[in-house]
């Protein structure tokens, strides 16, 4: 027995020894702690992986780890989000403690350029990266707004509507239209980023010059913004769950709204206008306003309107009016003046709430990784009934199918709904629309919101012109409206590594979306121009786009030479689809459960279809790197597009760039304060074809109910089909070509405490496409073809400076300054086209595009003061409508009379400088971040003054306080507006002139946040790996000299922007932000 026991023990020992000796031969157990270099606290959940294998563990709540079976020659890779990766050779160590540096813009920082991935060290191109957390800072519905001031060289003009599109321009305005950058999401091109949730984004890269962007060839000229979404990481790991939430509200800033005349002031100034009219015309004064009485001293009546009678003084026959109301409530009004004055801006705005929630699940196994994001954004606009909702699910995954194959997908499904948005191009065009905001200024303050019966009061009361109550229309006509879309977007891909270092990838991506809308407008007879009918409209559309991309990438190292080669092929359709919409009036009832298009009177239905543009492309790229010191990149893309005729269908777009890491040279080694210095230069050609209708090459005829039908048989109902020339074709149009050159450097000083990136660039665009307006003699209904007409030059300097460090051992700070100088000039237009104009606003045509001027420059008479006396009128060159107190224009051409030839360039909406400043401090568990952005040197055309600052424009409607500083002999040239009178001619409200032009420069404090993070230990006791709470204020103040509501004035057409008719302001908001990790 004993022997037996002994033998067993021996065997066990032997076996154990054998096993353990086998174990020792292969590796050993290594343990240690992973902590943050910044705070020395353990990092829970950090990943420790044996390099080149799928073997790995994650750290526990204290940052401790133990990994078995590490060989002495193995390399352990320590990583954690937000920290720089670190590699340690195991050697003989059994305890390895690692302090990870925070992930400041490190040289290893990944740059995702769409088809390939590189890092800052090796990049020779001008690219900018936006941190994922920066995208989350401001509660906008569209992440593109977060690029404002974050990226040197990117201009962002946005307005205050939730979910709105913004004007995003990368390095200037290269063309007369279609200047929006190309957006790539997980490799799939699209034209909008508004479906993306900021919490799902992993990287954002802006490709600014040809050296980076030319790989996108014909669509790259306006820059490329590349987004990748979160993917999880491979390696056996626990599920990581994160929650990011934001709750807050936006303040409409009622005190910042333009001031309007009080009821009594409005009455007084109406009488002043009558006096001025009489003086100008040499006639006796007549005080004829239906409300303000016949005497010189204007008075307010007791009732503005009493069932058809206006300006009632004394009492009214209440019984009779009540009877009239009972008989006909729709058309019987009893309106008392609001003596205190109605603040219409206040009435149409509200404190607007925002809610954003994201749940992220990410994880991996040894051969797969995944990320699932659930997102809700529910945001109200400051305007009543304006809202944006987006619910989306993202599922990204990748799985190894054996050793050489990988299959993956990135998919997002989105429901987005927008209510009450104003302006074309998904809100982008709201600035120059006559929006409800403009209606709010146009309503006189004397009109109350409700009449004595509780109905909406409006301009049924005579003498106030034709504004419509914006409260009524925003309430009645918007509250039941809906517009929403379901969409899916993403790709599936397969990667294979047939031989070492060669990866073949095929990806099929695209998007599909279905939208639906319906709207109700309600009969209302209380406006001076009433809405006489109930009406209903609804419609739908779908869009499908796809892209197929095949690439092969190969990298090889021989000695100190590294070569990466990428070859690819791509085919895509940028979107085909159909739309249908109908409308009609006066259904039996407007009950929401009743109305549809079948039940309305005179239904009108229209539909359309479109095929999109097909692209077929081939591309290649080679990166060569010698000693990690000398870098050369060459790339070439050939694109074919169905947009152009057969003879100009293909374009070839090459680019070359080189970089030299000077700091690695021997002669630099002494300059120890220079940690890293790389000089870069690049040249390349990119294309743009956005600004061309897909049918541009064809001459076409069309049939249109509104344009070409005719009841030839004399029928009383219906009409015969007719055709008209709808398009004049140009088979010879070709790509716009941008030739760009860029010189810059990336420098890091003092071991990362100071970084500087500087780029000097020039982009010359030739063969600019534009729909040159044709002389009317050719038939104005035919769309003019886009022709290659001109050249544009954009040049500038982009600077980024980062300074970070410790103020004390406990207090860290970082300061980032971005700035870009921009100069834009139209160099040349085709012969016979000296210039072309932008659109008009109530007869005012503010914009002219002409060589030697910036795009969309303001053009008009130069106002040199007012006519202060009859003597000045007589002495001045003949000017139509000249009279005392009116605008005096400069005789620019000196011909002794003021004619249209005296109009000249009087401003430009293109900013000379845009920039941003980000300052953050961390002390202990607290962090404070602030963020500013600025526009300098741009002008705004304040068209809203046309409505509020002349008595004669919509005479009787609401007027602004500048009336009180309108011209008088005493004010002279210090007056803020011309003499208060009715006349409308080119010397008053009838011409474009420099009086409308204002400096649009501004500095906005876009974000200030104060956050508190729980200690990791405390958090882990609560079952959390991370917990941070922050409060933030957005748009806390804006410094500007601009007199309108907000200086952020965009527009959806580049040849016509910076015009403020009824721009939606960006106003203050306050939020609470919660970030949790589980």
């Amino acid at each position, binding site marked *: 027995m004993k022997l037996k026991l002994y033998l067993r023990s021996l065997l066990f020992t032997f076996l154990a020894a054998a096993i353990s000796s086998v174990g020792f031969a292969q590796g050993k157990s290594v343990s240690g702690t992973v902590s943050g270099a910044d705070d020395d606290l353990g990092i829970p959940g950090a990943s420790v992986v044996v390099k080149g294998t799928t073997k790995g563990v994650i750290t526990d709540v204290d940052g401790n780890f133990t990994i078995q079976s590490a060989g002495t020659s193995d390399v352990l890779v320590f990583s954690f989000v937000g920290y720089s990766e670190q590699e340690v050779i195991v050697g003989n160590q059994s305890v390895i403690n690692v302090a990870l540096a925070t992930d400041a813009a490190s040289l290893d920082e990944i740059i995702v350029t769409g088809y390939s991935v590189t890092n800052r060290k090796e990049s020779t191109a001008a690219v900018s990266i936006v941190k994922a957390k920066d995208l989350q800072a401001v509660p906008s519905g569209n992440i593109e707004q977060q690029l404002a001031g974050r990226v040197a060289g990117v201009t962002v003009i946005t307005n205050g509507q939730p979910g709105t599109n913004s004007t995003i321009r990368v390095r200037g305005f290269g063309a007369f239209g279609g200047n929006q950058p190309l957006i790539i999401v997980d490799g799939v091109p699209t034209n909008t980023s508004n479906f993306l949730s900021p919490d799902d984004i992993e990287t954002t890269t802006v490709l600014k010059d040809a050296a980076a962007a030319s790989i996108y060839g014909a669509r790259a000229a306006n820059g490329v913004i590349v987004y990748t979404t979160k993917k999880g990481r491979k390696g056996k790991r626990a599920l990581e769950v994160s929650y990011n939430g934001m709750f807050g509200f936006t303040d409409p800033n009622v005190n910042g709204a333009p001031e309007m005349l009080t009821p009594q002031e409005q009455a007084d100034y109406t009488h002043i206008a009558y006096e001025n009219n009489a003086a100008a015309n040499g006639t006796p004064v007549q005080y004829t306003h239906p409300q303000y009485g016949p005497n010189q001293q204007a008075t307010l009546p007791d009732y503005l309107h009493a069932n058809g009678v206006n300006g009632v003084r004394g009492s009214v026959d209440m019984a009779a009016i009540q009877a009239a109301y009972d008989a006909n409530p729709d058309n019987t009004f009893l309106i008392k003046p609001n003596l205190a004055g109605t603040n219409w801006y206040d009435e149409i705005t509200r404190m607007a709430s925002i809610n954003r929630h994201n749940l992220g699940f990410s994880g991996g196994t040894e051969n797969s990784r995944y990320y699932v994001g659930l997102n809700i954004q529910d945001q109200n606009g400051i305007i009543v009934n304006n809202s944006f909702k987006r619910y989306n699910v993202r599922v990204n995954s990748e799985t190894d199918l054996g050793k050489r*194959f990988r299959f993956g997908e990135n998919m997002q499904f989105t429901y987005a709904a927008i209510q009450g948005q104003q302006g074309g191009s998904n809100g982008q065009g709201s600035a120059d629309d006559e929006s409800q905001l403009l209606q709010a200024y146009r309503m006189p303050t004397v009109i109350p919101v409700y009449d004595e019966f509780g109905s909406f009061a409006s301009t049924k009361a005579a003498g106030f012109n034709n504004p419509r109550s914006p409260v009524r229309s925003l309430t009645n006509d918007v509250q039941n409206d809906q517009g929403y879309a379901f969409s899916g977007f993403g790709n599936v891909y397969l990667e294979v590594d047939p031989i070492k270092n060669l990866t073949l990838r095929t990806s099929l991506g695209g998007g599909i979306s279905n939208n639906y809308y319906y709207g109700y407008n309600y009969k209302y007879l209380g406006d001076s121009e009433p809405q006489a009918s109930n009406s209903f409209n609804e419609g739908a559309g779908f869009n499908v786009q796809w892209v197929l991309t095949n690439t092969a990438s190969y990298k090889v190292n021989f000695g100190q030479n590294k070569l990466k080669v990428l070859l690819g092929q791509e085919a895509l359709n940028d979107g085909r689809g159909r739309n249908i919409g109908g409308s*009609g009036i006066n259904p039996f009832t407007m009950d929401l459960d009743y109305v549809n298009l079948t039940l309305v009177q*005179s239904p009108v239905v229209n539909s359309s279809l479109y095929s*999109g543009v097909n692209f077929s492309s081939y591309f290649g790229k080679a990166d060569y790197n010698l000693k990690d010191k000398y870098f050369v990149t060459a790339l070439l893309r050939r694109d074919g597009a169905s947009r152009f005729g057969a003879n100009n269908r293909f374009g070839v777009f090459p680019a070359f760039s080189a970089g030299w890491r000077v700091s690695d040279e021997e002669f630099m080694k002494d300059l120890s304060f220079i940690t890293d210095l790389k000089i870069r230069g690049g040249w390349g050609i990119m294309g743009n074809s956005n600004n061309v209708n897909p049918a541009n090459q064809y001459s076409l005829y069309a049939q249109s109910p509104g344009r070409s039908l005719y*009841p030839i048989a004399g029928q009383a109902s219906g009409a015969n089909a007719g055709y008209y020339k709808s398009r004049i074709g140009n088979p010879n149009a070709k790509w716009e070509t941008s030739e760009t050159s860029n010189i810059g450097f990336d420098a890091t000083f003092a071991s990362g405490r100071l970084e500087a990136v500087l780029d000097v660039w020039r982009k010359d665009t030739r063969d600019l496409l534009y729909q040159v307006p044709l002389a009317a*003699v050719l038939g104005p209904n035919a769309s003019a073809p886009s022709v290659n007409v001109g050249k544009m030059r954009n040049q500038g300097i982009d600077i980024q400076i980062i300074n970070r460090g410790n103020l004390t051992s406990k207090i860290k700070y970082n300061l980032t300054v971005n700035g870009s100088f921009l100069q834009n000039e139209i160099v040349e237009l085709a012969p016979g086209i000296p210039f072309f104009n932008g659109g008009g606003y109530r007869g005012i045509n503010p914009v002219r595009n002409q060589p030697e001027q910036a795009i969309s420059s303001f053009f008009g008479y130069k106002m040199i003061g007012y006519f202060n006396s009859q003597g000045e009128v007589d002495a001045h060159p003949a000017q139509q409508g000249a009279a005392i107190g009116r605008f005096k224009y400069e005789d620019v051409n000196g011909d002794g009379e003021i004619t249209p030839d005296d109009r000249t360039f009087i401003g430009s909406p293109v900013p000379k400088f845009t920039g941003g400043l980000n300052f953050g401090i961390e002390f202990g568990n607290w962090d404070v971040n602030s963020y500013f952005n600025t526009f300098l040197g741009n002008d705004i055309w304040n068209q809203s003054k046309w409505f509020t600052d002349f008595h004669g424009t919509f005479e009787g*409607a609401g007027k602004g306080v500048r009336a009180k500083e309108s011209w008088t002999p005493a004010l002279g040239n210090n007056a803020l507006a011309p003499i208060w009178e009715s006349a*409308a001619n080119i010397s008053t409200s009838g*011409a474009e002139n420099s009086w409308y032009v204002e400096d649009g420069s501004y500095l906005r404090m876009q974000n200030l946040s104060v956050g508190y993070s729980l200690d990791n230990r405390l958090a882990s006791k609560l079952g959390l790996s991370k917990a941070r709470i922050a409060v933030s204020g957005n748009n806390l103040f804006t410094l500007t000299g601009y007199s309108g509501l907000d200086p952020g004035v965009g527009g959806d057409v580049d040849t016509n922007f910076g015009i403020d008719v009824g721009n939606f302001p960006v106003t203050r908001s306050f939020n609470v932000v919660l970030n949790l990790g589980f």
Partner: protein
Amino acid sequence: MKKNNIKKGVLTVLAVTMLTFSCKDSFLEVLPTGSLGEAQLLSPSGLEGTLIGAYSMLNGKGFGRNAGPNNWMGDVLGGISNKGTDAGDYTAMNPIQRYEGDPTSGEFNAMWSSKFEGISRANAAIRLAKQSEQISEGTRTRIVAEARVLRGHFYFDLKRMFNSAPYFDETVVDADIPEIPNSPDILGSIEADFKFGMDNLSETSPDAGRVNKWAAAAYLGKAYVFDGKYAEAKAIFDQVIANGQTTNGKKYDLVPNFGQIFNAENDNHEEAVWAVQSSNNTGSVNNANWFDDLNYPYNTGMNGPGNCCGFNQPTFTLVNQFRTKDGLPLLDGSFNSGDNVVVNDYQVEASSAFTEDTGELDPRLDHTVGRRGIPYLDWQEHPGKAWIRDQTYAGPYSPKKFVYYKTQENTFTDGSSWTRGYATMNVPIIRFADVLLLAAEAEIQAGSMDNAMALINRVRTRAANSIINEYDGSGPAANYKITNYTSFDSKDDAMKALKFERLLELAQEGHRFSDLVRWGDAATFINGVYLPFDSQFLVTKLGGANFTTGKNEYVPIPQSQLDIQPALTQNPGY
């Protein structure tokens, strides 16, 4: 094995996709959607549709109110109408009604552009018809002839408002068209187009809206009158009056009651030599009288038409001209003085008492002008100030000729847009009364005053039969008194009577300003009669306004066209 399959699969996919997209050129041929190529229009139905497209521009659709076939601007400049409404509404018209229109005004550009859209469509129809091998010679000739009359019409409109325009026909290629200079000398070409129509068109057609032989002839006569070729005009008019018939086969005659000329239910009547057709339920109000949607009394509620917006208000001077003495108009020009001035409710509240004018009046006044106390079609008596937006700005009157009846709402109106006021009565281009008066003018200038008087009296006889009665049948709504002329003492007297008759008969139909200009009367009438009287009341609108001789006879060539078409020359004075 499994891996091998995957590998094969991948390679196959790659190969197939590469082949698919690299080898097919057709991938880059994407055809346009929802449109037609020119070749498709060479078929018989394509050609007919192209011609319909040209007809479609007769109502100026899509180019703004001054492109409408009622030639609103012609009546505003002619002292017939003012803009109406109030000072701040549609301010682009304010300088125009004060004879201060600037070349940069979009109103002139809209008018100009609409006419050239029509010309362009007419030329396309002619060019395609000449090219097509799929139609008979007869059809070809008809299409060409109809299109040429349309082209002549659009050029005639340009001639009467702008005076000067670049003339080109269908043979000029697009590239050369902008190079053609403008010239006032285009009536010859216009006459040739009308002559071709007269010589080649049939008398009738199943389609009442088509221009026929007699419409072309009448228009040719009109062009001759404008051209001062009175003898040629008389010869043509003699035929038209004797033998003319409408396209739907009605012998030309005057509609018995003046008011029925402008009733949609009576469209394509015997007086409609050529009219712009109008209809509803077409998918767009542009095929109804879209240009008139604001030309109704203001603030009527459901008790009146349109319920918006009070544009196109008749002037004081116009109304006073309907005053008669012994049944004849006040040819001595005394209509604006003393008791001749028609009593109106200017500055009188709708709720205050008002005594209507009791003097003698031409009954056409109350078919042309809405005024207080007079039945407003079948709606109600015009309530005066309650239906006027701002009397002190635009006077006390409302337009009436092209207003629909209460009983016609939604049957003869198009209710598919934002106002109720899309009427569908046809708008005359030429009506028989116009022909009779033009013939009378030709007679006076080139022939017999007796013939002229007979023609004028024919028009007046119908007017005398067009009394408006009170709703309760108690008798005429006003003291109507109209008689025929018995003699003209001189050619001058005859012309005076003729001119007055055109005003009374055709007011608010867009003819007045070009008549004044061609007679050389514009400055005398506007500065001497119209402005001095009306500006007493409408101070804001007209105070200090003045017609400049040698300039304001024609509107300016639009600056935006001059800017892009250097071949054009601006009219004198601008």
